[in-house]
């Protein structure tokens, strides 16, 4: 079976999922519009995915056949969960989904030769850094829970520059390390048992570390920094095969995180809450979010309460779970679908990452490999940071769960990420096919 036919078949479960999901939510709401509307939603979704699939058939015939269906599953699942939380938000999210597909198509059309990106790497890096700093610009920046992650675009939405910056940074790293990786390895010296790269070439990397740390201070968000820095180390490790670089990098990051965790009040709060999430003293303010995240998960148990059955509001109308459609959407998933449902979601993400790394393995040139590695790593790390935060593995921070959380920036950026991965994949598999 050809790759594209496999992709087509893969879309069937995604459509069934969105139909069944809406049906479940409608039943729970006791609605009589069940029969036609859930099917309509499923049909519209299937239509959109089919359109994208036809486009891929023409534009990228060799691209990985599993990535798009996997993402469609995640996005459709996200739509259902958001619909269950707030139907107005779900309609907006559906519009973002359509816009995302548009951007996905545009990316593929305009970046057919994605290697052109290499020429603009410093421009891309600079633009990414500017994006990251935007939320701190007075007047347009938006502070959410002490972190600076959003830019308010009046009347439209709160734009989250980190979502796009992560892609830009990965492009820059892949490009820069393609050039310098040989030098980094060849010039390395062992000092006190640790292999250190030459300062001349390592310098820019130290600058990156410095910038990552600075970002931590600027955006005051441990999770986003961990995501960026983790992706950096992943690309660096694949480029150089040196574990020692990773160790040194992690140590430096740990040092920076420790400093921030003990000196920046907002980060300190998060760390305190992380260490003792059920502290009664902190519960009414800083601890409320994580404690209720854990309570929601406990309420779900092994099999969950079922779609639409979880409590989201207090009797007075206030939310029992703050930000259920964005930061804490994973807690809602565990609450309603249980451990089983949550593991299925995590497995889907892992499959996406697996396809990404597979693309990296198949790619013939270093830039493509490093780009695929970086994009896959940053994607997987984003999942780890937010799910890890919600489950208290690490301090909770405000990043989105890719393709599932409500949010335009997140959806748009992740569709660009998907487009890039498919572009790399198409080239790699086309070349492999040609070489055979």
């Amino acid at each position, binding site marked *: 079976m050809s790759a594209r036919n496999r992709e087509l078949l893969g879309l069937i479960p995604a459509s069934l999922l969105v139909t069944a999901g809406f049906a479940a939510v409608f*039943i729970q709401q006791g609605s009589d519009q069940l029969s036609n509307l859930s099917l309509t939603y499923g049909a519209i979704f299937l239509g959109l995915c089919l359109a994208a699939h036809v486009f891929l058939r023409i534009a990228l015939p060799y691209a990985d056949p599993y990535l798009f269906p996997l993402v469609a599953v995640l996005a459709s699942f996200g739509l259902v969960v958001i619909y269950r939380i707030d139907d107005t938000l779900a309609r907006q999210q559906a519009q973002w989904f359509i816009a995302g597909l548009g951007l996905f198509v545009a990316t593929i059309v305009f970046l057919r030769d994605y290697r052109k990106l290499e020429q603009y790497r410093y421009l891309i890096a600079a633009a990414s850094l500017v994006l990251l700093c935007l939320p701190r610009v007075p007047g347009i920046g938006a502070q959410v829970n002490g972190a600076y992650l959003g830019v308010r675009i009046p009347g439209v939405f709160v734009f989250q520059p980190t979502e796009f910056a992560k892609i830009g940074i990965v492009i820059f790293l892949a490009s820069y390390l393609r050039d310098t990786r040989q030098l980094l390895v060849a010039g390395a010296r062992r000092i006190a048992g640790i292999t250190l790269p030459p300062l001349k070439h390592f310098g820019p990397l130290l600058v990156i570390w410095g910038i990552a740390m600075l970002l931590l201070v600027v955006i005051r968000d441990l999770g986003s920094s961990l995501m960026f820095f983790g992706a950096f180390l*992943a690309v660096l*490790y*694949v*480029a150089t*095969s040196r574990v020692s670089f990773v160790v040194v990098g992690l140590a430096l990051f740990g040092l920076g995180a420790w400093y921030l965790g003990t000196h920046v009040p907002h980060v300190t709060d998060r760390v305190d809450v992380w260490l003792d999430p*059920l502290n*009664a003293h902190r*519960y009414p303010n800083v601890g409320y979010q994580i*404690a209720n995240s*854990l*309570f*929601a*998960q*406990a*309420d*779900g*148990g*092994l099999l969950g309460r079922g779609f639409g059955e979880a*409590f989201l*509001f*207090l*009797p007075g*109308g206030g939310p*029992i779970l703050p930000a259920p459609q964005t930061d804490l959407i994973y807690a809602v998933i*565990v609450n309603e679908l*249980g*451990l089983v449902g*949550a*593991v299925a979601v*995590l497995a889907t*993400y*892992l499959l996406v*990452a*697996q396809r990404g*790394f597979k693309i*990296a*393995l198949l790619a013939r040139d*270093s830039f493509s*490999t490093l780009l695929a*590695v970086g994009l896959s*790593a940053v994607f*997987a*790390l984003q*999942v*780890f940071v937010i*799910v*890890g935060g919600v*489950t*208290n*593995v690490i301090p909770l921070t405000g990043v989105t769960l890719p393709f599932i959380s409500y949010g335009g920036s997140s959806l748009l950026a992740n569709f660009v990420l998907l487009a890039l991965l498919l572009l790399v994949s198409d080239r790699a598999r086309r070349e492999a096919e040609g070489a055979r």
Partner: protein
Amino acid sequence: MSAPIMRLFATIVLLFAILVVWTSRWSVLDAKDLRDNALNKRPLLAQLHVKRGAIKAADGALLARSVRGPGGTFRRAYPSGALFGHPVGYAVIALNQLAGIERYRNDELSGQGDELGSLADQLQGKREQGDTVITTLDPQAQRIATEQLAATGSPGAVVALDPRTGAVKVMASSPGYDPNKLGDPGVFRALNSSGSGAPLLDRSTQSSYAPGSTFKVVTAAAAIDSGKYTPDSVIDGSSPKPISGVPLRNDLGESFGPITLTAAMTNSVNTVFGQIGEALGKQTMADYMRRFGFYSKPPLDYPADEMLASGERLNGRLLPVTSPQVDVGRMAIGQDKLAVTPMQMAMVVAAIANGGRLMTPHLADRIVDPDGRTVDRIEPQLASTPVSPQTAEQVNQMMRTVVESGTGTAVQLPGISVAGKTGTAEIGTVGANLTQPSFVAFAPADNPRIAIAVTVERSQGGFGGTVAAPIARAVLESLLS
């Protein structure tokens, strides 16, 4: 570069494994602890969405029901207001406050009775709904008891049981409160504040009083059942008489000379019962008290911490009868440090009325599920056999003379023979003339259907026979008509 990519992917897999482990930890492994955490409002919220079952009186009158609140929640309404505030209690879920039957039967009322059933209901898409509790309470008699208590102007309690089954017919405590108003946290605070008169306290099970002479029923039963005395035994009833080395006087210092036990009962002669108490000894008295239910909480289907065990008490703690600090002679006439709940005294007379067999008192008659099926019926159950049928019959006869010609004539009912015993404990400082009148009775004496205990907390010089007996009479009249 392929090996590092594989290792990197392995690292990602490891990170995701950590996520799975942590999710398992919260959702399954530690879930019970989290659900029970005091900060967790979800179990409470879940209860708010449950339509609790109703609570009904024996005649089917609604005592508590659930009405729709905002957003699919329910709140409790009590159609009879303050009347059944005490036995029924309250369920203010939003404030996590439960009491009385609402609390004791919470599992049934909130439909958590059996896990399997509720799972099956969930699979069928049924909305959660609790079972209805049908009580043994009699609204008419409860109303009379409450009104009569209120008319005394003093706090107090009335308990009436069916001695044959243990069914509680009346459980009234004054002052009362309106459970409909407890949704307001301010009202809760006000009712709990000092100076409020403690209306939330159920005086029938939670307050202990000096039983005074009503306790002579226990002493007489022990005297006869132990075989040391008969109703015709003659004892010196002169006054004063040294008991435990200290002179004990009869009421008004009246000296009776040698009289029978029956006559001593009829006239409530302290010196006679003081001597009997000393003669029986602490161990025998302790044994009989335990058989009647003293020294343990009543076996009532009511929250344990809303009940008090009766017995000798020192500084709020139970003191064994055998303790050297107990003056058994004065205990035998209901003085010393005796602290007894009205419920306990009702159990004592119920046992005498039922031929020496004490039935387990119960408030619930049956539990009915939302489909109208009876899922549980509370059958009469023998709690203990404090005395033999012969002893019971003899004490019964002695108590009849109290009503016919003794201190309890105020309880006489036309055409119905009543057996009873008065009690008047002096409280407060000597000379203040403050009393705590009480009365215990059962009727009809030859085939008892109702046993009753009445205590009025404070009276200016009133007696059991003048203050408490008329209340008992009114309630008995209502229950026997």
